[in-house]
């Protein structure tokens, strides 16, 4: 087994009286595809927000490569190499596709406003580099043809891929994907699954995803965690999760596990 890249220890996030994430422990190995599943309102996105620094957990800590990132700002965490996409796509919609990716390159460039005003050599060099890199990322997600189109005018599936390209431009070591296949048709879902695998295999990026499509989850995940009411109720490889009684109950309600057993026996007969 390779080294752990993300370790969450007892992460707890409280909103008023509601404990959205309740003492979650999990660790993600480098270059893994790690899925977090659970019913609606289980705290998956809140947990993501704790990882990406949008929320600071009330309790517990998140370690990235052995270093605590608790209390760091989102942009600092992004610069460290944890980047994310959103459940409801959040592109810079009036900017063009390539500009979106160029914003993603922000922290790997160093030109200041003075460079920009004076058009220094650094400006020239970096702008050229930014264009080249951005176009390569667009090419990678298959959007090079719409580089100059406004991001908001792209079709839904393309917007999802553009968001991934923007995140990739930030040189992630860990990529958090929040429901990457939500609202996609089977063809687009297949393409997205391929893309996720490719990112891991070609660039060695660790991928943590929240996903509701169980076909996708079971197919690509190396490891799955299940959250319910903010607590982690199970963790394991896809086959373990499929037969875990608590997981089935979380999804189907109490008695669900017995029901599932019954159906399985019937199917066997």
């Amino acid at each position, binding site marked *: 087994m390779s080294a752990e890249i993300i370790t969450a220890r007892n992460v707890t996030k409280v909103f008023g009286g509601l404990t959205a994430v309740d003492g979650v422990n999990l660790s993600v190995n480098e270059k893994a595809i790690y899925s977090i599943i659970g019913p609606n309102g289980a705290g998956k996105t809140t947990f993501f927000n704790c990882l990406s620094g949008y929320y600071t957990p009330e309790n517990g800590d998140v370690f990235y490569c052995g270093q605590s990132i608790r209390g760091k700002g989102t942009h600092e965490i992004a610069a460290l190499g944890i980047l994310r996409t959103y459940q409801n796509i959040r592109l810079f919609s009036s900017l063009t596709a390539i500009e979106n990716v160029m914003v993603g390159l922000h922290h790997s460039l160093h030109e200041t406003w003075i460079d920009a*005003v004076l058009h220094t050599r650094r400006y020239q060099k970096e702008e050229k580099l930014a264009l080249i890199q951005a176009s390569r990322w667009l090419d990678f997600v298959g959007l090079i043809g719409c580089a100059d189109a406004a991001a908001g005018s792209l079709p839904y599936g393309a917007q999802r891929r553009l968001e991934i390209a923007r995140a*990739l431009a930030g040189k992630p070591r860990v990529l958090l994907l929040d429901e990457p296949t939500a609202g996609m048709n089977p063809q687009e879902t297949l393409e997205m699954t391929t893309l996720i695998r490719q990112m891991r295999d070609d660039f060695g990026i660790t991928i943590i995803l929240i996903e509701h499509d169980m076909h996708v989850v079971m197919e690509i995940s190396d490891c799955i965690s299940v959250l319910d009411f903010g607590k982690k109720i199970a963790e394991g490889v896809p086959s373990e999760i499929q037969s875990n009684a608590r997981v089935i109950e979380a999804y189907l309600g109490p008695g669900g596990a017995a029901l599932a057993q019954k159906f399985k026996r019937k199917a066997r007969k």
Partner: protein
Amino acid sequence: MKTTNLQPIQTGFIFGAVNVFLVLIGFNAMIGSLLAKALGEQVLTALPPLQFLAAFTGLMGLWSGIAAARKHSRARIAGDVLAGLLSGLAAGAVTFVFCVGIGWLLTNKIDIRNYLTVLSFDFINGVLMRLPPLIGALANLGILAAAGAAGGLLYGFIQSSKVQQMGQQILALTRSTTEKMKRLDHGRRRLALQLVGVAMAGAAVIFLPLNWGSYWNYVAGTVGLYVILGLGLNLIVGLSGQLVLGYIAFFAIGAYTMALLNSPVPHNLMLGFWPALVLGVLLAALAGLLLGLPLMRLRGDYLAIVTLGFGEIIRILLKSDALTDFSGGPRGIQNISGPTLFGRPFNSDIDFMYLIAISVALAAFVYNRLQLSRPGRAWLSIREDETAARACGVNTTRYKLLALALGAAFAGLAGAIYASRNQFTGPEEHSLMASINVLSLIIVGGLGNIPGTILGAFALKGLPEILREFSNYRLLTFGALLVVMMLSRPAGLIPSKRPQYKIPQESEPDESHVEGKNVS
């Protein structure tokens, strides 16, 4: 058939209403006077000779006819004429009702001037062509209907095949020219365009101030200063998306820095124009930074309200009794000395015009370069979605502060020049209305781009000066303009466009994947 005839009538009604509105605000008298002046007639009263008033009515009819014919175009000229006639009749009907109403009020000696100050009896007589109300109203109807039909005919004629062909040839010619321009490589094309533009603007800037007299220099200078203000505010509102309402406070800081350092009265420092100019810019930028620090957690409406408060605080502080010894209080500061250049005074209106032109060029240059850069993209990303921008690694706090400081520096520059040019500055010059003016001009012009800002400054600061006859209705037109703008061109007169990038050819084919890939 019935419905198609209804549409021109609807158009006509709209034009009728517009005509009545324009008459009410005295626009017809103004245009009539301008026409008369253009034809070399002396206009001694507010009311131009009758034929020019009639000409204005005729123009409205013509316009409505053309609009109706265009909207509901038929295949044949006769159809166009019919549409024009119908719309003219409809517009005439509205005007007719209005004239009869006015005439009735007039004959019953009801004084409507309490409500509509421009409507003197003489003026109403003018609208009615000095005829009895009913006949005058009929004359209006006749003019509008005839002009409408003429408009339809004109449109039909333009649409007819021969003229059409000519138009297409011209269009093809312009298109091929632009195509040729496009085929030039991007950088060279831009350079050529820039050179032509700079040469033309340069020639205008060098020769115009010498020839068009001090009044025009003053007007153009004011427009120029507002262009600088507009560009600065555009950095803050248009690029980084922070709605700052008290922007004029930075202008005030620039102006008062210049005033306090260069006027004999409160302190007699007499530091000289140039150091004071630099100090004014720096102090304004510093104020932008300091104001920005507590604002960083605010967005949208809250930010607008707090900055509005900041603007008012600065104005009221300058006005307050407590600071009278320091800042001159409500009376302001007089006798601010002008700049000198190489030991000679540089303070005539022409010199100031040159100074302002150079400053505008500098501001536009800086703004343009900032737009297409890493900071520029960071600002745009903050405007579009601050949370996502931060998740992309943009330090939003830092870039918002940078935008505020740079925008404030622009305002400081404009303020310092303004105070020195007028040799006076006082607290009431820096009221909330001035902030709103700047905001309106960038919204009307088109948020976030330079041509829009220049056009907006001209439309909102230049036109009211040129059209002095308008002055009674400045605010009314201002409001009407904003409403019309937001309805018809919500992105401004010149909407911003995103740049189209030409992706440079890669030199080393494999570099990106090394770059993109992480050390693993």
